[in-house]
């Protein structure tokens, strides 16, 4: 029985107590990392082991060998412990280091380099990018609202009647971009997205507007502002679609349970998918309600029933007395979803089904509001 031992500096194959093969790494951190992520083929090791069975001390290496249909199994915990405690001797024996001091030195250098790789890899982790996008989305919303409010007030000096008729930001911006009142027609209003009736009303008030004239210079600035509002609005839509796409692809279960938007916000509040996956379901339930939580701890009042989770349609559309239970059910499934997404990323349809069943149960069982004491 061969024993395959993966070390930081190379692979050693033991036949009994003797070393039968030694396969040092030219670039230890890269090659070790390649084995961990399954991208390495370890051809040299495979040819060493042809036709024999072996125990392997590392799961990633085990998977690679199994994929190549080799007869391998995981070594025992006792053996793993033994390898861990005699690491330095193994490295010296295998000739990967000239002595214990050299082994310690090489191991440290390996650790520095591998750490660097892992940090780089982590920073390309999709969840971090999603969190950035969510932050940008919130800021875009703030920017759009502020800019649109100024645009309405400013253009409103010229055409005040438009304020109550032109709801919606891109609609108003479309009209303001078109310039002075005397240049606007039903066509302009319709092009801005309003229906025939609304456009006709706008055209009517436009002719009788009591707003003041606007100078060329000021008009130019208002139109520039309106154009910017439209540009921000477009970017915001793109950002939202991007988040939706990314959530579906890198956190499919969280997306199935919470939806892309709420899921991304929870992700953002947690800081990473890893952190979200390590949260208990009660933590997830109140993520976003920290102020209310601490207040309840101070004053001894009831703790909050839900934080960001309130934005989930299932929670906020439930009758008031059911919300706590619904939030708890959603949070429980979300916690599981996050763990699945972190560890495997494979979609699991049963989760959503199970949640829907539980929600029906709640809405049946607690159909009537509780009696007032």
């Amino acid at each position, binding site marked *: 029985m061969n024993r395959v031992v993966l070390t*930081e500096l190379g692979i050693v194959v033991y036949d009994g107590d003797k070393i039968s093969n030694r396969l040092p790494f030219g670039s230890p951190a890269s090659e*070790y990392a390649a084995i961990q992520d399954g991208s390495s083929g370890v051809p040299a090791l495979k040819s060493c082991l042809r036709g024999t069975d072996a125990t392997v001390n590392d799961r990633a290496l085990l998977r690679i060998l199994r994929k190549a249909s080799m007869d391998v199994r995981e070594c025992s915990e006792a053996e*793993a*412990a033994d390898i*861990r*405690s005699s*690491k*330095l001797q193994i490295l010296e024996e295998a000739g990967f280091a000239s002595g214990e001091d050299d*082994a*310690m030195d090489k*191991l*440290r250098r*390996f*650790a*520095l380099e*591998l*750490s*660097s790789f*892992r*940090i780089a*890899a*982590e*920073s390309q982790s999709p969840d971090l990018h999603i969190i950035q996008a969510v932050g940008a989305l919130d800021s875009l919303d703030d920017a759009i609202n502020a800019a649109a409010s100024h645009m309405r007030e400013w253009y409103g000096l010229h055409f005040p009647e438009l304020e109550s008729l032109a709801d919606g930001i891109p609609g108003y911006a479309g009209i303001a971009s078109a310039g002075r009142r005397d240049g606007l027609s039903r066509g302009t209003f319709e092009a801005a997205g309003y229906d025939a009736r609304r456009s006709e009303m706008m055209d009517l008030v436009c002719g009788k507007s009591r707003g003041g004239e606007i100078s060329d210079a000021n008009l130019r600035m208002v139109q520039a502002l309106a154009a910017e509002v439209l540009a921000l609005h477009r970017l915001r839509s793109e950002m939202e679609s991007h988040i939706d796409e990314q959530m579906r692809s890198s956190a499919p279960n969280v997306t199935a349970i919470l939806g892309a938007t709420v899921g991304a916000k929870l992700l953002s509040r947690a800081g*990473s998918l*890893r952190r979200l996956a*390590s949260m*208990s379901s009660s*933590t997830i339930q109140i993520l976003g309600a920290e102020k209310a*939580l601490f207040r309840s*701890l101070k004053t001894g009042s009831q*703790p909050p029933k839900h934080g960001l989770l309130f934005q989930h349609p299932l929670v906020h559309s439930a009758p008031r007395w059911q919300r706590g239970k619904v939030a708890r059910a959603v949070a429980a499934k979300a916690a599981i979803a996050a763990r699945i997404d972190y560890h495997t990323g494979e979609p699991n349809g049963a989760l959503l089904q199970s949640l829907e069943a539980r929600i029906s149960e709640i809405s049946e069982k607690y159909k009537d509001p509780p009696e007032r004491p």
Partner: protein
Amino acid sequence: MDPGCSVYGEKLLDRAGTEYRLWDPFRSKLAACIYNGLERLPIIPGSRVLYLGASTGTTASHVSDIVGGRGAVFAVEPAGRVARDLLHRVASRRPNVIPIMQDSRRPGEYPGMYGAADVVYADIAQPDQTAMAVANCKMYLRAEGSLLLVIKARSIDSVRDPAGVIREETAKLEADFGISQAVDLRTYDRDHSLVHAVYPG
């Protein structure tokens, strides 16, 4: 171990030709613990310390200074921005610090770790922190080695009474450890305690 370099803004002092670093109890829980009356610090020159939750390396850098050139600090922190600081500002500059970018829940997967530890220092703000620390001790802590476990009540249960939480976590250790001392980190960190437990092996 890294003369001339201040890791977290601490003052550097020169006394008789040797540089010393001021150890701030408001920044480092281990310092706070010592200030609040830790009777015996098991970390000595030459110690091999497995440090779970090394964060940006504030306390780890002081541990590195104590254990010196014949000791080692295996600093475990999952890859991320915090770990990046640990790597650049502490691990790469101190020859006795070995960075291990890993979740402390996976002690079997610590590339760069070798041999047994004399001390396991665990400062992880997670609900299952105690179980995590125990698993690491069983794998790496030598007989008669010490566990220094920081217990953060709010990470374990944000609603319960902190004193109760700390008692409960300490009780979880009694099966495998001899409790040497529990130090309240009051003044420096609210609702935190550091427990010194000895591992019979």
